[in-house]
């Protein structure tokens, strides 16, 4: 048997598959740095000369009317969409424009989608297991074993997102809110340096929202968090720094009070909301 074990653990050969991971360097400067970014989908300018910096450990809220380019921005950061022009840096070492999604993810940028996407055919536990920050190359994954510490880590996260009872249920049967949390939980498993959270509280009840708020604020400091949200109340409850996007570029930036009193902002955004 041990023979077999040996045989099946021969994955080191495949080192060339290893991702180019080196620590994120934030000694001088922000953790995320976007400058002069432009994107257009056949004619329509989704992002228009966008400049944005996020400091290490910051919790940043990004608001803006529909079509302001919030999601597109996240697509750019996570490598889903390539900008026509501009530069995007993660720390001062990694040029994100040269990397694809998995690389960026393994550099430590986690993303939660607008529409909660979890693996419905897998159990809650398995969802988190897949998200765990481990060697994600083929053979290691094939021969991966469930170490006790892994299990503890997962249970710990289950605690945080309050899904321990649903541990072995298929994610498909979760409620909308529970899916949101599961996805956040998956982010936590990734131990990312930077979390991109797209509309985390959509379709959540009041108390669910509060718990989410706590969760996100508690993360800030350890990790940098960028939250895109429509719900003003929620933003107010967590926001320190707020950035207002409009027509693909930054309209205003500052504390919630500052921006909410900015006449421009009121015109283009709050005006519409209320």
């Amino acid at each position, binding site marked *: *048997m041990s023979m*077999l*074990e040996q045989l*099946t653990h021969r994955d080191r050969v495949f080192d060339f*598959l290893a*991702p180019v991971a080196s620590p994120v360097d934030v000694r001088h400067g922000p953790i995320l740095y976007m400058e002069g970014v432009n994107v257009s989908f056949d004619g329509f300018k989704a992002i228009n000369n966008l400049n944005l910096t996020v400091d290490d450990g910051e919790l940043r809220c990004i608001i803006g009317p529909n079509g302001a380019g919030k999601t597109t921005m996240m697509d750019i950061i*996570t490598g*889903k969409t390539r900008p026509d022009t501009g530069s995007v840096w993660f720390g001062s070492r990694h040029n994100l424009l040269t990397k*694809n*999604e*998995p690389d960026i*993810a*393994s550099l430590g940028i*986690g*993303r939660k*989608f607008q529409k909660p*996407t*979890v*693996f*419905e*055919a*897998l*159990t809650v536990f*398995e969802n988190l*297991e*897949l*998200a765990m*920050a481990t060697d*994600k*190359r*083929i053979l290691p*994954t*094939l*021969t*991966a*074993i*469930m170490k006790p510490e892994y299990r503890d880590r997962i249970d710990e996260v289950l605690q945080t997102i309050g899904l321990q009872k649903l541990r*072995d*249920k*298929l994610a*498909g049967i979760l409620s909308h809110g529970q899916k949101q949390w599961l996805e956040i939980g*998956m982010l936590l498993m*990734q131990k990312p340096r930077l979390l991109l959270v797209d509309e985390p509280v959509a379709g959540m009840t009041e108390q669910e929202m509060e718990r989410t708020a706590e969760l996100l604020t508690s993360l800030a400091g350890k990790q940098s968090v960028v939250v895109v949200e429509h719900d003003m109340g929620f933003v107010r409850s967590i926001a320190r720094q707020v950035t207002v996007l409009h027509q693909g570029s930054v309209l205003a930036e500052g504390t919630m009070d500052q921006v909410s009193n900015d006449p421009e902002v009121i015109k283009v955004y709050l005006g519409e909301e209320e």
Partner: protein
Amino acid sequence: MAISQNWLLRPFQERSTQIFLGVLFAALVVVTFLHLFMPQDSALHVSAYTVTLLGKYLCYALLAVAVDLVWGYLGILSLGHGAFFALGGYAMGMYLMRQIGDRGTYGDPILPDFMVFLNWDELPWYWLGFDMAWFAFIMVLLAPGILALVFGFLAFRSRVTGVYLSIITQALTFALMLAFFRNEMGFGGNNGLTDFRDILGFNLRTDATRLGLFIATGIALAIGYVICRAIVTSKLGRVSIACRDAEARTRFLGYRVERVQLFVFVVSAMLAGVAGALYVPQVGIINPSEFSPLFSIEIVVWVALGGRATLYGAVIGAILVNYAKTVFTGVMPDAWLFALGGLFVLVTVFLPKGIAGLLQKRRKAKTDDDTPTGQEATA
């Protein structure tokens, strides 16, 4: 859960796998016994004809398992798996061809008959080495493997998905079919390779060899099944399902989706190749029609009929359909296509999860277990 940590041993602790292997080996033993020790005239006697027939079914079963691996767990509907099957078959066929030696009609020690009478003066380079069993058997794995590697690398890298992928797999096998039909290719054109004499020194025209092949196929199926099971129960298996259901999400978790797809695809192709290799000596001919797109579609139908993403469902489907074929072509030659066609329609409409779906329902009813079977998801 007291599941062994070793990915290769894990399947053996599953009840489904235990049952499957149990049934399979029981079948092998019974058939062997009935064939060897039952008198010819007894009703229980299993004739050499039946043994070969069963052998053929098992080959198809292995092929179906290979397809289910990519379709059921990776969400890649390959309409070209016949190509890998046929390539494996040709690799074996070429070996068997070389084994004929100077016993061919023209008695040429090197050249197969079809080359002699189309005036090839020497063996084309790609036939070299096939006189050695070990080389041929390696090629059985490599030929389909490499094709799958190249094709998959191109396709997955540029993120060809869904229907588009299905159609170009079809284009692949169609192109290969046309190519192998050409006599210039040196694979015997439409007549393909046939009139085999012996394999590894055993005469192919004796019942003993047939039984041997049948058992070999059974074992191959068992091994193939366990390998697939091991993959799908490993973390990689869960990642595949993740790729199937939410490709983008999987990427953002840091998995290289295209590599996962490539790995599984190649494994599946190799299994298909092995199935083809075992198929050829039992049916006694390999010819380009195995490349025909319709055949590849049929394989998918077996899997669907048995039930996607269960593996054992694929086996059931393959055996059932082909058994039906054998029966119908015998009893109702003029109308068997009605029966077959009707079967496909009815199953897809009334048994969306195939036969395995039925079994599961019954099991679920008894004990509510949550083995992930993501049939809800459509590739």
